[in-house]
């Protein structure tokens, strides 16, 4: 929590503080990650139903941010706003700002297509392309964007290996993406997103259809990806949030109740609601 706040507040007051403050600031800048994405009073609606109420949250670069909260509280909606997928739903709209490297992605003239290329997404429900083979699914993002990789097999193998799926599918790469089990399909979708090498990876409950072994692999994967990617993961699994994330945001009925460093949030929650939720005392 502190680290994020420090870097956020550091920006508007450069040099205005005294020497000690400045050195504290410098120290914070050295240890604190840069802010990759930041929402400012982000609101979202489905028709007249307001689903997100003025959410302001910063997402640090090359860290894992977990989004937790009871079902229907707007977690999916929130991360779908981060790559402008929310507006794809008929009747859905949003207000407020989402900064990606300091630029508002909702600003006029920003192409949502380009935003989505930089901010990849793994959906809550696995959605591989059934008319494409497993290999083509992995390459879909590149091919559909007109990129022809020089060594497609390498791209496929790397992405599938990263998603912990390679060993299971290496002999059936030409089979349809829909012929896999639900959990395998989800990992295929992760591989498909990683093949594009986005800067931010949004994951909406990527493990909800996976067995404990595959879940452990995905968590390992998240640890590895952290070096290069900024990750936002929605999860219902408190242990998982505690295991994989550096920062955690707790949502409740469309509001961001609390966010901060994961350890702090789980050991010393500031709000009663958060405590109730993470200790399982929830209606």
């Amino acid at each position, binding site marked *: 929590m502190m680290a994020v706040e420090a870097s956020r507040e550091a920006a508007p007051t450069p040099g205005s503080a005294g020497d000690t403050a400045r050195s504290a600031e410098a120290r914070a800048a050295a240890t604190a990650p840069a802010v990759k994405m930041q929402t400012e009073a982000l609101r979202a609606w489905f028709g007249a139903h307001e689903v997100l109420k003025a959410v302001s949250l910063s997402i640090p670069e090359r860290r894992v941010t977990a989004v937790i909260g009871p079902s229907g509280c707007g977690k999916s909606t929130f991360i779908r706003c981060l790559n402008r997928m929310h507006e794809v739903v008929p009747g859905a709209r949003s207000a407020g700002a989402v900064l990606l490297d300091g630029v508002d992605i909702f600003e006029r003239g920003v192409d949502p297509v380009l935003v989505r290329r930089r901010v990849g*997404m793994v959906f809550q429900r696995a959605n591989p*392309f059934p008319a494409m083979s497993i290999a083509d699914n992995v390459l879909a*993002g590149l091919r559909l964007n007109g990129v022809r990789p020089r060594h497609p097999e390498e791209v496929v193998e790397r992405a599938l290996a990263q998603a912990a799926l390679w060993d299971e599918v290496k002999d059936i790469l030409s089979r349809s993406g829909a012929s896999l089990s639900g959990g395998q399909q989800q990992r295929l979708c992760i591989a498909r997103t990683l093949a594009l090498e986005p800067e931010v990876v949004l994951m909406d409950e990527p493990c909800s259809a996976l067995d404990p072994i595959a879940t452990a692999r995905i968590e390992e994967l998240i640890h590895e990806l952290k070096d290069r990617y900024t990750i936002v993961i929605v999860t219902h699994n408190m242990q998982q949030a505690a295991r994989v994330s550096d920062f955690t945001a707790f949502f409740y009925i469309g509001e961001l109740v609390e966010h901060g460093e994961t350890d702090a949030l789980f050991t010393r929650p500031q709000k009663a609601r958060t405590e109730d939720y993470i200790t399982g005392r929830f209606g």
Partner: protein
Amino acid sequence: MDAYRRRKVIDVGARAACVAATLLAVVPLVSVLAYVVVRGAAGLSWSFFTALPQPVGEAGGGVANAILGSLQLVGIACVLGVPVGVLAGIYLAEYGRGRFATAVRYAADVMSGIPSIAVGIFVYTLLVLSMRHFSALAGGVALAVLMLPTVTRTTEELLKLVPDSLREAGLALGVPRWRVVLKVVLRTGAPGIATGIMLAVARAAGETAPLLFTAFNNRFWSASLVEPIASLPVQIFTYAVSPYEEWHRQAWAAALVLVVLVLLMNAGARVLTRARGRSR
């Protein structure tokens, strides 16, 4: 026990009625097929498929130009009708909201119910009168108009069956909307759309009425768009209403050829559908 027996009796009775009704429905179909095969097979020969029609009174001759002509007409109809139909279907499924789309949908539904002879008259007025003669183009346009509603609505229905999650998957990969529609949605629905097109083509191939006064007929080969052209249905009609025994024989043989052609197209459509079933 009594109730049980009553139920049994009703069950057997109902089943018997179903089987009887099914047989009744199949009988005409089978008898038409059988009759065409029996009457038509006699007139079949190698030259029937390779030779041009002979003038009245001379024996032999074939319908080679009519077979090719039918294929040419269907080809023209596909070139004109399929792109328009598929694009209209894409519009209705992917972009069509509001009044205009509803109107288009309604028009397509009404169009599929229009008698084919009315389409023939329409194209006759539009093309034949203005060009001052019958032509393959006019025939192809008439068939295309007949195919259009089927192709449009089939495309729309099949694209609507493609789950939204696939569209979202494509968009989330940073792919522009039109490309998602083309490369993901259309590709996923393609086998079904191909089936629909095949069925529309099979139907158009058997149409006679709209061709009578658009493509008319031709005793010779024709590779021209602006000349009249022979077709199997019109040739069958011409032969069947003639007073000559030899021509009657040939009408049956030509009918057999047409039926087999249409059946082959239907079978092709089924194979495509099954291929889709496997890949799912």
